[in-house]
């Protein structure tokens, strides 16, 4: 029986082990890929993935309504834990965004959830490759290196405003490059 992300969400919220099993079978590979990219260590990546899914299992009953797709949600949990492990930072910036307590109601407000199902890795890689190197490097330092805006500015020896602009322009370009996959492109209200 094919489970939708909504089915998995309901199952996890009901504290069903089958829900975690379905979540892992659907997104465990991607989660491990993200963790390994960040940590470059298979043992550490496995630990982070296991901790992340166990955290979801144990906190299933505390989920609150929020935003984001199930895929992006689990990837963010894994990414945050991997960054913690990589940097050993006592003051996690993402403490202000307790992602593990946020809703796992998928696809309601994420216009890219359906797009992601159809996109190939090659298409995303091409869109990234088409970015100017400094914009791509900024994104990678942030997303995979856990660098804050100030740390990126220092590492790349550019003003803070340049970092902000590069990230925004890069995301705008990626959005434009992949937006034709959207069935109903978002329009400002």
């Amino acid at each position: 029986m094919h489970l939708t992300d909504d089915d998995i969400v309901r199952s996890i919220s009901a504290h069903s082990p089958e829900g975690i099993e379905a979540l892992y079978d659907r997104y465990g590979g991607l989660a491990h890929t993200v963790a390994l990219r960040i940590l470059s260590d298979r043992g550490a990546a496995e630990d982070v993935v296991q901790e992340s899914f166990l955290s979801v299992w144990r906190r299933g009953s505390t989920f609150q309504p929020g935003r984001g797709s199930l895929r992006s949600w689990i990837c963010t949990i894994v990414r945050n834990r991997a960054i913690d492990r990589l940097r050993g930072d006592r003051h996690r910036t993402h403490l202000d965004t307790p992602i593990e307590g946020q809703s796992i109601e998928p696809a309601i407000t994420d216009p890219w959830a359906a797009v992601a199902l159809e996109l190939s890795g090659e298409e995303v890689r091409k869109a990234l490759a088409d970015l100017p190197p400094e914009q791509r490097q900024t994104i990678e330092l942030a997303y995979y290196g856990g660098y804050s805006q100030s740390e990126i500015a220092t590492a790349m020896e550019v003003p803070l405003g340049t970092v902000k602009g590069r990230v925004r322009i890069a995301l705008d370009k990626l959005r434009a490059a992949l937006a034709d996959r959207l069935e109903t492109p978002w329009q400002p209200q």
Partner: protein
Amino acid sequence: MAAAMNCEEADDLLALDAVGALETADRAEMERHLSTCASGRHLAAEYAGVASLLPLALDPAPPPARLRRNLMAQVYGEATSKAPSPWWRRLVTAIPANRAITVVAAAALATAIVLAVWGVTGQRLVPAPISYVVSGGTSQQSVTGNLAVDAVTRQSILTVHGLAPLPRTEVYEVWLIPAHGPPKGVAFLAPSPSSGAWTAVVNGSLDGYTTIAATNEPIGGSPGPTGSQVLIGQLG
């Protein structure tokens, strides 16, 4: 008062947040802007969605079969066990009636002694610190320590000996547990390089709490106890 952030300024922060680079100092201002800007909220969702596609560009690295096996063994094991109450709930409901009486009697005796001294010396009454004993929990049974409570400053110092060192990715988080309701994380234990003791400062009144405990948690702490219990103490 600083002028409210405009949309262009907010857009930069939304993009930073989407890739995990937003700093704490900017978050409050961004959230304030989002609370009144619908287009900002839509853009935040757009940026978050785009950023969530980044992992798709990675070359897939399938996890080993043992990862699934270990994870599911733990999940199903916890699910099929007799679902005990969280350790902190079992602790609170298991406090012997005579323990509460003993603590109350001790507090009454301490008060009587203080009053007697005050009466004799005519000194201004300064409450003596109250001290509670803490002992090892389920995972580190040889731990000892005490919680010294200063009722005047409403500050308590938890001093613990015998705790094992932690990896850099973990902390010992201190919890106050009420008779009813979830534990409240109040501090992190810090090691003293010279003495080998671990200490934590707990600010605020202990009224309404019956137990103090500590668990090891991921660095940064957790919303609730998830790790093994390393120490426990009754507050009466």
